């Protein structure tokens, strides 16, 4: 299938980009890596009047690491995340998770911002952003504001981004001593299409959890923080009995059934990935 006709604009400055995005009544779709947008265009599920290419805008890509945050430009390719040595040292869960997305060819184009804005409820990186309490910076021609990842995702392929706003960067807070792990189960076959994922981040005193963050994909219409499971995990040993944690997580999940499996199956997988993530962190740990 072929897209509806549209006008392609590739401005060279952020100002021009935001001006075009903010034109009243304009039906504009920003184009980052295009790896999710182009199929939607071809299938005519997205029907823009203007496609706004961000790829010529300077300053939107890059990884910057300070003592407090890991700051990643929205247009940073997943491949750059995978290959960034400073990022691997500062926040290894991010490159590790990015490496699980699709394949090298796709990761070469696909961007962090695009993945977050596409807001596929089964996608991997949104769950990591939610678990790590990432802050998403949205800019319009007039103002800049930030939204916590957990408030950004508003439903399947729906976000808090307003039409005149552009996601420009994402900040992941750095928490010294925190260990993170992303565990996933994919759909049938080994092609790797995601089904369910879990990001577990813990601070430990010995092997006792002093602070826990859990967020999962594929268990609701958006990536979801598992607050009760976090509470249940806090104060427990990672290699101890996790039944209460798993029960709490199950109670918080709201999965649905589809051709890839029933809600019960997804609930079960959620327990499995929590157990696996905890076991891995307990034995291997992870760089903070």
């Amino acid at each position, binding site marked *: 299938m072929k*897209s509806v006709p549209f006008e392609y604009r*590739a401005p060279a400055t952020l100002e021009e980009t935001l001006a075009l995005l903010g034109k009243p009544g304009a039906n504009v779709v920003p184009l980052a890596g295009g790896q999710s947008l*182009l199929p939607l265009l071809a299938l005519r599920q997205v029907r823009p009047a203007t*496609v706004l290419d961000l790829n010529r805008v300077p300053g939107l890509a890059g990884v910057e690491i300070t003592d407090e945050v890991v700051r990643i430009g929205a247009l940073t390719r997943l491949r750059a995340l995978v290959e960034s040595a400073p990022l691997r040292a500062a926040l290894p869960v991010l490159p590790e998770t990015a490496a699980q997305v699709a394949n090298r060819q*796709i990761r070469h184009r696909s961007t962090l911002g695009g993945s977050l804005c596409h807001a596929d409820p089964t996608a991997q990186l949104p769950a990591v952003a939610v678990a790590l309490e990432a802050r998403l910076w949205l800019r319009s021609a007039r103002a800049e504001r930030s939204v916590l990842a957990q408030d950004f995702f508003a439903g399947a392929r729906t976000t808090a981004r307003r039409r005149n706003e552009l996601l420009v960067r994402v900040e992941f807070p750095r928490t010294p001593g925190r260990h993170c792990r992303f565990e996933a189960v994919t759909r049938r076959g080994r092609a790797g299409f995601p089904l369910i994922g879990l990001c577990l981040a813990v601070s430990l005193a010995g092997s006792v959890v002093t602070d826990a963050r859990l967020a999962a994909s594929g268990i609701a219409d958006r990536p979801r923080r598992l607050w009760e499971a976090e509470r249940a995990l806090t104060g427990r040993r990672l290699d101890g009995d996790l039944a209460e944690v798993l029960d709490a997580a199950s109670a918080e999940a709201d999965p649905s059934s589809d051709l890839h499996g029933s809600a019960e199956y997804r609930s079960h997988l959620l327990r499995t990935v929590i157990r696996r993530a905890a076991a891995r962190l307990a034995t291997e740990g992870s760089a903070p």
Partner: protein
Amino acid sequence: MTRAVSLVVNGRPYTAETEDRTPLCDVLRHRLRLTGTHVGCEQGVCGACTVLVDGEPVRSCLMLAVQADGCRIETVEGLATEGALAPMQQALMAEHGLQCGFCTPGVLMSLAYAERARLTAEETVSEVLAGHLCRCTGYVGIRRAIERHWKTEEAAG
């Protein structure tokens, strides 16, 4: 909206008139008549349309032609030199790594990238071949060709 797009494909400059909405694969195939690049799904999954854009593998159904304006494109037509098959092409032939041959051009371009990026044979299979669907061969011949070619290259240093 239509506009002129300039591309350097396999070292040769081209200019083509194209609609803004047209993906790169359609311009390569139907404007430049370089039909070696095939389109298998237009959904970015099968990988048949893979070409190299400025040296990197790209699904040409997932990139607008206008986005490639000014870029250096490599397609399957550029792999053989003076009528001689490139070593990777020879390896695919020797190991029966193609049957209908529809997905082959895309596979070849990804392998050309993997070779230049100095990936190991194992990485090439697990990360690059993973981005392609082949309905005929069951991949076994393709993997054998990769192993054969990588071994030959290693031996040659």
